[in-house]
């Protein structure tokens, strides 16, 4: 695995990596991917996919609860705030 693939994955995953990390991870990822490639040996054409450990479906009404007291606590964790405004980076470029 070359560092080009790591570059690509780091952008897809939105994780900035320095040169040292890129080198380290490209080596480690190569051996990890080679190892997970073992599952290619299995032939599952007969099987279904989309497995989940859960076999239940608990759907509930999407009703509003008015007793939620956590509003202020959530806002306190916000990284950038001015008065009642919460500041984020501009999402639309241009």
């Amino acid at each position: 695995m070359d560092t080009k693939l790591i570059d690509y994955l780091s952008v897809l995953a939105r994780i900035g990596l320095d040169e040292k990390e890129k080198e380290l991870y490209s080596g480690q990822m190569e051996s990890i991917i080679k190892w997970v490639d073992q599952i290619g040996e299995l032939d599952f054409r007969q099987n279904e996919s989309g497995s989940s450990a859960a076999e239940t479906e608990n759907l509930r009404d999407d009703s509003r609860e008015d007793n939620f007291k956590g509003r202020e606590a959530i806002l306190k964790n916000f990284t950038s705030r001015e008065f009642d405004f919460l500041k984020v980076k501009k999402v639309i470029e241009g």
Partner: protein
Amino acid sequence: MEKAIESIKAVKEGKTTVSKIVENFLDKIKKEDGQIKAFLEVFEESAKKQAAEIDKKIAEGREPGSLAGAVFAIKDNMLYEGHEITCASKILKGHISSYNSYAVQKLLQQDGIIIGRTNMDEFAMGSSCENSAFAKTANPINHNLVPGGSSGGSAAAVKAGFCHIAYGSDTGGSIRQPASFCGIWGMKPTYGRVSRYGLVAFASSLDQIGPMANSPEDLLLGYKAVKGFDEKDSTSLRTQDENGSYKGLKGLKIALIKGLAGQEGLEKDLAEIAAQLPQKLSSIGAQVMEIDFKSFKYALPAYYILASSEASSNLARFDGFRYGLSSDAPDLMSAYMKNRGAGFGPEVKRRILLGTHSLSSGYYDAYYLKAQNARDFMKKELEEVFSMADIIITPTAPTAAFALGEKISDPLSMYLSDIFTIPVNMAGICALSFPYGQRKKDGMPYGLQIISARMKDEFIIKAAGDLSCSL
């Protein structure tokens, strides 16, 4: 040390107070946790306040909750309102929980004391607790060795006597492997048995909260205290446990996996213990059978694909905008890259990269889909086993505790610690680890894993309780 059930009884009989019990634990933590570092934070103030309120309730003649007298620790990925939660990650440092997780809520409602949050591998990724951004927890039995992971702080807190019961989360073995390394009891309940509401997600289809304790009695108490249906978790189960089906060890149908004693990487002393099991189990009247487990070999690689894929999606929420580590950057993209690059540690980065790779265009069928298929195959195979046998017994981990630093630079060898525990998460069934046997050179404990079908949670606790006395 007194068991939780004994402390609860003593409080009920007026022989002690909850405040005294809490003080004793706090003293012990103050004296000894500097060496072990089981806790990331001790909730001294809130624990004392909680205890005083319960004692007042008792003094006024009101009935206390059923857990009054029991002291719990929680892994640092379970939300406790008004308290910091970090998942041992720099990206969440300083984050205060805005609500209670279901499990914490249940403990508080029943007057259980929560004494602190324990160290863990960052976002529960790891098998040694060394991936924590804040501390390296030592194994209480030998401080040069790891406590296991990812719930290593919880295991160490129980072993060191800093609480009665600690909770961990188990995605691929993160409760059972540290329980084995620290010589305690640890259980991963059936998927859906304990609500994941308020548990910070790593791999949602595999994560499960479970108890860790020094005895089967306390393990059962810890399990019963937090299980139950919760409408806030769409995978929570309404079904009841299968109670009453356990009838003792005589005639118990026990499956052992063929060829497991020769498994690569299995420590010699443990292989010897495994080789003696069939004869020992037969001598106590159990019905022993050997089974083939064809998909066993593929469990680990399939798990790393699925768990990492789910993690890459779940951890996308940590961007440093709404909460968490935030840095100065000129634009949106570079802010993402910088916040997440600085906030996550190496193992979390590796797993997110692997998950991103498995889900990326052109690789999805070869990795993610194939791993899902392997999971289906494994589930079916295990269902067949449980149509013939009551339980499966395996070692919990291939080795006893290893040295701090021994495996940290070799991710693959670290992953192999979970080879016996992972199939249980993949199939959504239940299992526990209990201490059994020792490594000869240093006396470090081994653990045996008892696995059973869905809903057999109480069954395996009872069976393991008897096995630990008879084997």
